[in-house]
């Protein structure tokens, strides 16, 4: 997440910084490759049911630990389940949790951030106090505890991760709201007699939203990793539902016999997280540069 830091420097470093050259109006080809990969994974997850894949949970249809072949492009695992099918169905869990949790965080955290950043005062102080406590609270312990106790199903995992994402998202939105709250067009709207909620929704929100959405991509990557860690520990959605984290843990048991079982889900998760990080990072820079050019 700290990766988003360099933006301010690239602005100053127009002379030969390398990066500065292509941070600008164009997003660059790597961005489109990243966005394309994310789109591909989303598509695969949505279409997993219609694609000619074997049942990802059926045991004993094939020999165990087959290498990649025409019939099984990625091979099979310890229980003879098709790995390609499991990786694609696993994308469903990861993406559902990632997108749903951040949608929740964005709705709740975004609203809190907007209100706290615009009205300031006591409300803002209250928010700051709460955020300080929440951010000092060890996220992983919270996550493990709540999920262990509540039971391991999709809704609880999504809500827990969503709650955890509220404070960081609210902080970013609050900071951006404060930047816009005193700009001329907001003052003008206020002078014309616009009410608070109108200014928030019509004047400030459209300006804050792009940056928040760009940050959300990186946040989705963080949530996907967190869900991966949970399912790696066996605490996310229960087996036999395939999850990348769970597959990586299973593959870890047979590393000595067949490293491929762990490799495929690891690669899928790595590339997806990398693409989300890159696209989010680039978009954040893109929107920041536009602000600077105003």
């Amino acid at each position, binding site marked *: 997440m*700290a*990766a988003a*830091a*360099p933006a301010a*420097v690239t602005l*100053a*470093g127009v002379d*030969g*910084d*390398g*990066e500065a050259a292509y941070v600008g109006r164009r997003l660059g080809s790597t961005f489109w490759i990243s966005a394309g990969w994310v789109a591909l994974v989303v598509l695969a997850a949505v279409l997993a049911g219609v694609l000619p894949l074997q049942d990802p949970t059926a045991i004993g249809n094939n020999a165990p630990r087959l290498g990649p072949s025409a019939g099984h492009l990625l091979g099979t695992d310890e229980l003879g389940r098709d790995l390609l099918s499991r990786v694609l169905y696993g994308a469903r869990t990861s993406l559902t949790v990632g997108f749903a949790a951040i949608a929740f965080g964005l709705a709740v955290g975004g609203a809190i951030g907007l209100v706290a950043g615009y009205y300031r005062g006591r409300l803002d102080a209250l928010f700051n*106090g709460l955020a*300080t*406590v929440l*951010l*000092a*609270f*060890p*996220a*992983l*312990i*919270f996550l*493990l*505890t*709540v999920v*262990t*106790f*509540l*039971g391991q199903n999709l809704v609880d995992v999504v809500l827990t991760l969503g709650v955890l994402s509220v404070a960081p998202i609210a902080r970013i939105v609050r900071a951006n709201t404060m930047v816009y709250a005193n700009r001329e067009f907001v003052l003008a709207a206020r002078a014309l007699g616009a009410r608070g909620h109108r200014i928030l929704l019509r004047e400030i929100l459209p300006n804050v939203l792009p940056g928040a959405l760009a940050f959300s991509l990186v946040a989705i*990557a963080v949530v996907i*990793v967190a869900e*991966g*860690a949970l399912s*790696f*520990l066996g605490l996310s959605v229960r087996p036999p539902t395939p999850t990348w*984290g769970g597959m*990586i*843990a299973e*593959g*870890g048991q047979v*590393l*000595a016999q067949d*490293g491929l079982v*762990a490799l495929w889900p*690891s690669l899928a*998760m*790595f590339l997806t*997280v*990398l693409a989300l*990080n*890159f696209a989010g990072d680039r978009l954040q820079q893109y929107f920041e540069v536009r602000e600077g050019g105003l």
Partner: protein
Amino acid sequence: MRFLAARLAQLVVVLLAVSAVSFLLLNQLPGNPVVALLGPAATPQAVAQLTRQLGLDRPAWLRYFIWLGNALRGDLGSSYVNHQPVLTSIGQRLPVTLELLALSQVIALALAVPLGIVAALRSGRAFDRLASSASFGLLAVPGFILAELLVYLFAVRYNLFPATGYVHLTEDPLQNLRSLTLPSITLGLGSMAVYMRVLRTDMIATLRQDYITMARSKGLPTWWILLRHALRPSTFTLVTVGGLNVGTLVGGAFIVEYIFQVPGLGLLTINSIYARDYLVVTSTTVLVSAGFVLVNLLVDLLYTFLDPRVRSARFA
């Protein structure tokens, strides 16, 4: 001084809030240590008896205040499971986790500082692009994947380091280091990528300052300028990020301890969560939060030491 007092007051408030939240949260959730201890087949009489014995029949808020009162006098209670005083378990486990954290940060800084400096010096050129891309890629590798990769390479493929089996420092220092090598690398590489990127960015900004040009024109050797003139004022963000990274780092350490079965605070916490051992979980949670707040307080104090001049100038 007033700043310090305010921050210490903040620490107290945060710790009270964190302990209350974690204690009450744990008690609100379904399942309790009695069931975990006796198993599902226990008779209702046995359950009731053990519940009374452990004091669990009293309301949660009352137990919280009893616990808090004892905690302030240095008694964190005992585990419901093995009746070991919580303070004793933490005393045994904490040094292991601290050693793991320290080793990982040594690895992270030993790699990040030279790489960050050289990347900044040659910014935009091949080495910088390679190092920056590699660190960006590394940021996308979750700890548990990195752990498995390292186990595959160094334990399965080439039997250089053990995958599990912790040896205590007092038993055999050398074997202790060997058993912590893979866990520390797993944890350290993640921090390394963050640190390198941050240091590189700051260093590029510093190298553009007039006093660096001045030092160059005096004919001072490059390495001298980098280490004596440019490094310290460039560590501003690095230190901040390092402080904020503590939360992520401890979370990572918990998972790494679980994967490599290192008997530290993380393994204790995770096992206690499974066993519904409320007091142990609350205590470790408070301890981790206290560590987080204290480290960030320390970071604030470090700023003035690192560069008294920059404090007002940089954020002007």
